[in-house]
């Protein structure tokens, strides 16, 4: 299997890579920090990946996207599966005071996904097989005062991905929207941990399984499906008064 991981230094993405490495897959890792990339690559080689290539790119720079996808295709001799995982939680309090900061957060979390998805959808449509997964978030299911810039971006990604899934289903390509709940990773390092926090390994294994099976929308850990069902169904007139 030939797998491209975009945002490969994310703690969650790395756990997905580990599952593929154990299957002796060939991996193409994209991230912006060369030292972190090298550490991730070494780990995957030891774990059994048949080939590991790394590629440095700032994913907020949309002009890098075409080249990085081509580089991946060339390095691995094709691509069977892709995971898009990079992201920034951002500081809602600070960002809401600034149009620029708000759009920047939206840019890296949503616009860069839309750009990558557009290019990759065409690749997979032509190939007529494969698996394309993106990491959204439960935060994208409903707008909340404490986190709506990030949430809106994740929501946009989910909607866009749904459209791509609908389009590519016709040619037998799987498109997976992953919606993790809280995960204990560098992104949440500053948050106080409670029982709702999952380990990245648990979430990573679930994403790997979903990519192989070609699932559609995956809440992980699964109890988030129920939580979000309830949250989505609270009437807005009540919801808007809640401190969330």
């Amino acid at each position, binding site marked *: 299997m030939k797998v491209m991981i975009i945002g490969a230094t994310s*703690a969650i993405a790395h756990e997905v890579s580990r599952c593929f490495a*154990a299957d002796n897959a060939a991996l193409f890792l994209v991230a912006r*920090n060369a*030292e*972190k990339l090298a*550490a*991730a690559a*070494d*780990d995957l080689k*030891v*774990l059994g990946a048949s080939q590991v290539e790394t590629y440095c790119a700032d994913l907020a720079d949309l002009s890098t996207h075409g080249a990085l996808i081509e580089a991946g295709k060339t390095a691995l001799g094709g691509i069977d599966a892709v995971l898009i995982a990079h992201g920034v939680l951002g500081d809602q309090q600070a960002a809401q005071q600034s149009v620029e900061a708000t759009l920047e957060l939206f840019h890296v979390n949503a616009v860069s996904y839309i750009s990558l998805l557009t290019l990759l959808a065409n690749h997979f449509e032509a190939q007529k097989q494969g698996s394309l997964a993106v990491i959204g978030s439960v935060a994208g299911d409903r707008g909340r005062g404490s986190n709506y810039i990030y949430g809106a971006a994740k929501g946009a990604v989910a909607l866009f991905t749904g459209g791509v899934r609908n389009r590519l289903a016709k040619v037998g390509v799987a498109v997976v929207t992953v919606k993790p709940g809280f995960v*204990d990773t*560098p992104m949440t*390092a500053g948050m106080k*941990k*409670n*029982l709702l*926090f*999952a*380990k990245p390994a648990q979430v990573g294994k679930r994403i790997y399984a979903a990519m192989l099976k070609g699932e559609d929308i995956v809440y992980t850990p699964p109890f988030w499906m129920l939580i979000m069902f309830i949250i989505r169904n609270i009437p807005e007139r009540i919801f808007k008064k809640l401190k969330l």
Partner: protein
Amino acid sequence: MSRSYQSWGNYPKAKHQRVIPIHWRDALPDLQALEGSLLPYGYGRSYGDSCLNENGTLLDITPLNRYIAFDAETGVIRCEGGVLFADLLNYIVPRGWFLPTTPGTKFVSVGGAIANDVHGKNHHVAGTFGRHVTCFELLRSDGTRLMCSPTENADLFSATIGGLGLTGIILWAEFKLRRIQGPYIAQEKIRFGGIDEFFDISEASDKDYEYTVAWVDCVSSGDKLGRGIFIRGNNAWHHKLPGKSATPKTLLTAPFDLPSFALNLHTVRAFNEVYYHALLTKVQRKIVPYDPFFYPLDMINEWNKFYGNAGFLQYQFVVPYASDRGAIKEILRQISTSGVVSFLAVLKVFGDVKSPGMLSFPRPGVTLALDFPYRGAPTLRLLDRLDQIVRECGGAIYPAKDARMSPQMFEASFPNWRAFSPHVDPKFSSSFWRRVMQQPASGK
């Protein structure tokens, strides 16, 4: 899952100012800028206060869990300090390798195993874990990163092995694995009626058995005093390697803190009676998977919660071989007449392979590990009495299991501490270290 950042014994309980996870070797936080004292924290499998830093900062090393290199020919592996033994086993056992030595739980980190220079059932042939470490990289609070090995920064190398996390963060380490023919152990259990018999079996087993350990019944007195079961084994070669799916599962989880009356003299006595007599014949031979052989306690998740909210103390000491029989007998007698109950009692003879760390605990002699539910003053008084006996014999207490030994007892156990202390990182400290060095209690 949330983590509680306490120690395995849940005694003492500590409050930390903050916990900082360390995720990358090459994107490290500025330690100098942090206020107060710092201490690395692995999986918190130390029992007492050596992994705690009351009012200070803990540096959670567990996200640092990547492999760096593995040589399948020589079995030399290099990995980050937070790699969990359980994960490592899942990786190496199917490839025909095993840990050079392992403690009685696989839920420890590589860094933690080095910092306590842990020992296992094969100490008499393999020595401590630190013996198999070829090099590691140490991060000091001023940001310097030092390569340490027996030839490079040799002093810091031997200060860090068994150095209780006080010399800096072990970012990664390299060590030698041991070849195995398969994941099974040919195990023998032998019933013994008393301490003298234990020593006879132990002596007879050391040559031909790689792994030896014994369980002792600490509640019975009189002519049953010191009875127990000797367990010995060798790697069995005639079984196949497991496939990927052979990952063992834990059987049970202790769901909450049980009321502390669950473990009392009567339940323990009943258990011991049953366990001792469950061995129907004097000797029982069996081929068993490595998991239940090395990690019987890991079968029950969070078994430490059986001790309730008050927590428990583990007491592990070593006494030199010459004085052993008298001392061990005296200690068992003291315990059985004290009315304080030890649920677990593990006895093992250490070999004379030299430990590499300045503060390593293992040394030639016999070691006994006991668990005591914490019942306040009576428990502490009993342990002080036991200290006295251990000290008179020239023995030592294991810091990884300790929450209460006196500064005098520490100095007597580790006369080398004077050579060690200059290597302590100026910003690093622990609850344990402040206690035995009689430094002010605050982590600031």
